[in-house]
């Protein structure tokens, strides 16, 4: 390309947004007080720290079976109750089952719930109920509502109206419509959303464990703060294996479900 052909205006579409982004990230890093001279030191600290973590404390693994089981159980029960709760709420949030006022109010409640982080639901519940499994299960169950409630309500709204009309025309009341027209339609979607949410909830229950729900997250946090890095590394390995295998398992079952639906 000759110099004469070079025009800055040709690159206007790239240069302007890029410049804006660079400026914005500069300002943002000012407000976060990011100092890249810390970063070099941080890398040294971090690698030193990671070398300190090797090898994992093999003797700690038997102690951690119980907390791991607790974490899985928290996620499982939370997902179960959360799915039931979201299903009940979804009936009120679907346009074809409830009246417009109720629907809009429920929908906005769902989206408000979605924007409250589960951690703070847990903090509130811990203040009310004390530490332990109870607030964690309730927090996970409530956390499901924001996502599952919306997805299920959308699924219910997609049900063909003829299906519901045909059941209604032979004299079914609301509950019978739900039992015989709505439920059979949404059950495959319900299960696949619940599996996906279970995947999210496993991560969540590890995180919630660290602020007082018990389980493997608590082990991880305490061994970090007690500076028992070898023990922390064993907990870390368990968490990674747990999250990875649950993710594989859940996506395996969801794929199975998808092919089953297609074949049907």
């Amino acid at each position: 390309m000759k110099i004469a052909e070079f025009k800055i205006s040709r690159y206007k579409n790239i240069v302007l947004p890029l410049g804006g982004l660079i400026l914005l990230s500069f300002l943002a890093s000012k407000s976060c007080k990011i100092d890249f001279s810390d970063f070099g030191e941080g890398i040294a600290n971090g690698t030193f720290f990671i070398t300190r973590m090797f090898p994992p404390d093999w003797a700690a693994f038997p102690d951690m079976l119980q907390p791991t089981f607790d974490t899985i159980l928290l996620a499982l029960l939370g997902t179960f109750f959360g799915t039931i709760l979201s299903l009940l709420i979804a009936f009120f949030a679907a346009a074809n089952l409830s009246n417009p006022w109720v629907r809009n109010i429920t929908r906005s409640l769902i989206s408000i719930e979605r924007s409250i982080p589960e951690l703070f639901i847990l903090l509130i519940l811990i203040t009310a109920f004390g530490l332990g499994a109870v607030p964690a299960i309730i927090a996970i169950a409530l956390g499901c509502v924001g996502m599952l409630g919306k997805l299920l309500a959308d699924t219910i709204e997609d049900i063909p109206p003829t299906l519901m009309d045909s059941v209604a025309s032979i004299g079914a009341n609301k509950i019978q419509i739900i039992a015989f027209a709505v439920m059979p339609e949404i059950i495959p979607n319900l299960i696949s959303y619940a599996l996906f949410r279970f995947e999210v909830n496993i991560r969540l229950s590890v995180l919630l464990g660290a602020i007082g729900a018990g389980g493997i997250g608590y082990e991880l946090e305490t061994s970090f703060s007690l500076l028992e890095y070898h023990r922390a590394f064993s907990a870390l390995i368990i968490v990674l294996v747990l999250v990875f295998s649950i993710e594989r398992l859940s996506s395996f079952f969801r794929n199975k479900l998808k092919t089953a639906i297609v074949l049907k």
Partner: protein
Amino acid sequence: MSDFKIDLPSAKFKQKATLTSLVILLVALLCSYIKFNPLVIFTEFHFLQEFFVEMFPPNYALFYENEGVGQSILQTLSMAFLGTIFGGSIGFILSFFAANNIFQIPFLRNFSKSFLAMIRVIPSLVVILIFVIAVGPGSFAGVLTLIITTIGVFGKLFTEVLENAEEAPSESIYCVGASHLQVIRYSIIPQVLPAFISNLLYAFDLNMRAAIGLGIFGGGGIGYKLYMAMRVLHYQDATALITMIVLMLLIVENTSNFLRGKLLGEKL
């Protein structure tokens, strides 16, 4: 028709009933194992009620009396922004090395694929605990954590987007003599850019939530302020902060949805 027989209840009903009762039994067993009684919500509801009474009225005076609050809101926004921009860009670059149709060295490609898969499973809790030790508590540790998690979530997504890009435009400009880099620049990138930007907007939405949660573990920002307010039992301050957070997240979510709808609507 003498041997005509109607099974009541039907086999299907029996099957359903067995399944339901088994599930209920299992859940009841697990609940009793972990000492969770669902009715506790109703029997101990007065605790929650007393607590809510303590939380009201929210102390909105906090926002103009305490300068730190406004700053921490700005900090959370910047954390999410930086995490999205840097994490998204690094994820974007890495995804080119992991896409089947672009990067032609199988060994390195599998390496970057498994790197992206590995970084995906590391929970943010672990990452922030490590970074807090490495660079000290504060929003810098939060930003680094967000970068790592964004790479994890979006690296794989971008790889899939790249692999789904259409072959025909690339082949046609390859035929007229474009080099490999030019194929990427003039065929692949224009195809994936709208998806990339819309995913970035979504990532910003996710990172806002994550940034608030990370505050508890030493990530700084408004999450830290809220955690502190809860710990020193200033519940009225906490209510004010929670309403602020909800408002902020609602605005971010709706703006991101709106922009994404506009972007995909225009480009597709």
